[in-house]
């Protein structure tokens, strides 16, 4: 086994410190008893978490984000599953184009798409409509779901399906009893990855949300451009906690390393 030199390990420690510092400080300041942004040293307090309850806007945005993330992740998986099966199992004209199109939200800056959708929604009178927001988020989450479903579908051993079909199972039964369970890690992983990305999304949402549908990241951005107080740290800590829980579940059902680095 290769060993890293002390110099390399020092460099590595600094990189880790750099990556964790902003997250750690947010979570620490959230527990400050003081009125200013201070790292608590002797006393810890939950007063800034309680303070959030005095801002119904933040509570409303929190629920908006949670509903939006659940619905758009479900929509993304519902669209990506049939598309992923078609792309992984059939050879047909336009296959490469469709695959590229469905992955393209990763290449189109979300801000540009937000600008474009705001114009479309204004033209059709859909601004501030939560349903259209779900469709917009569902669209940009399709690539995340599709990538994991494609990976699961191409790596899948199809002999079980053939065996079931030979034994007289109808195609619906084969899909429900064989295909779906075998693809489940990819589907669940794709759903969670879409959920996390939708819950954190800012650049598109900031254009297409209206006062009643503002999501939590948008609300935080608006608030932080005006003033910064420890309550922002408390809201951030809650966001970090929710993302961390989703990451742990994702790690269990699919493997976080596979999601982040790809299959090897």
């Amino acid at each position, binding site marked *: 086994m290769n060993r890293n030199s002390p110099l390399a390990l020092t460099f590595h420690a600094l990189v880790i410190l750099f990556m964790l510092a902003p997250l750690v400080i947010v979570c620490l300041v959230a527990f400050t008893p003081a009125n200013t942004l201070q790292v608590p040293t002797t006393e810890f307090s939950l007063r800034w978490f309680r303070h959030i309850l005095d801002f119904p806007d933040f509570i409303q945005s929190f629920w908006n984000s949670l509903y939006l993330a659940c619905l758009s992740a479900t929509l993304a998986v519902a669209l990506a599953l049939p598309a992923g099966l078609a792309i992984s199992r059939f050879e047909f004209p336009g296959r490469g184009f469709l695959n590229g199109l469905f992955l393209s939200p990763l290449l189109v800056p979300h801000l540009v798409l937000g600008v474009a959708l705001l114009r479309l929604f204004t033209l059709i009178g859909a601004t501030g409509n939560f349903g259209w927001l779900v469709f917009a988020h569902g669209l940009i989450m399709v690539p995340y779901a599709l990538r994991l479903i494609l990976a699961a579908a191409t790596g899948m051993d199809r002999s079980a399906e053939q065996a079931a079909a030979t034994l007289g199972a109808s195609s619906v039964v084969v899909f429900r009893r064989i295909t779906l369970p075998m693809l489940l890690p990819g589907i669940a992983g794709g759903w969670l990855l879409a959920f996390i990305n939708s819950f954190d999304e800012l650049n598109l949402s900031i254009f297409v949300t209206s006062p009643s549908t503002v999501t939590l990241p948008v609300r935080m*951005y608006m608030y932080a451009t005006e003033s910064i107080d420890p309550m922002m740290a408390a809201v951030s800590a809650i966001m970090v906690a929710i993302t961390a829980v989703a990451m742990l579940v994702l790690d269990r059902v699919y493997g976080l390393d596979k999601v982040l680095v790809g299959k090897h």
Partner: protein
Amino acid sequence: MSSLSSAAARPPLPLRPYLLCAPALVLFAALLLAPLLIIGLLSFHAFDYNLGVQDSWTLHQYLSVFTDDYYYSIFFRTFWISLLTTALCALIGVPEAYILSRMGSPWKSIFLLIVLAPLLISVVVRAFGWSMLLGPEGPLNQLLMLLGFDPVRILYTPTAVVIALVHVMLPFMIIPVWTSLQKIDPALEAAALTLNASPFTAWRRVVLPQIVPGILSGSLIVFGLAASSFAIPGLLGGRRLKMVATVVYDEYLHELNWPLGAAIAIILLLANFAIMLSYNRLLEGFHRKRMGGPV
């Protein structure tokens, strides 16, 4: 029997993949292709501050973006900030990915997750963390004062934007470099060392050439994402330090000049595509050279 009847009711095989893709295709046509086309058209419409969007066609938005010093300076600033971010990400990310790949079994995956997991934390939270770290009374300045230096003003300067962008983009550099490092046969480097190459020479002559595609790939992702970043310049750059994305936001939601905002957004989109295409060209050329040329 049941399998026969259900097979008869199903669409013929050649149509099936299209039917499976149809729902997603409808959504993508309606909410991706159509809106992009609409703002493409919108960017050629005239705009009047009193009357709003006009019906007449004009190139005025594009001309003003390319000739006006204000927009020129913003595009230039976005370009050099993204370039600097990319360079720093390569300088930090490449050695870090290499060090990670040389670690022992449990530590390797633990530290890889620690480095990559911030990717999934909201960028607003990370920007907010940096605004506290770099603030006038933040830990960085306290440390400087403790060491006897004068406090520095970093927040709302390009330095703050670059630091936070490097933090946000570093995982996008480490992932492709790590991926290409995994494909290298460790025996090659060992062979170079056995043949009396210094560790640095072995790294430069054996490892580096094989991870160049990974570095290129990471650089383009980082550059593209940095050039269209919004939250970081918005929260750490302050009101005066504008980048392309924050200007689009201003034109759209504060100035209400939608055609101009649309034109800048279209330029951003085309620039992104141009970068991706040139990357593919670059990578193809790289592979051809490696296949044909001397090893």
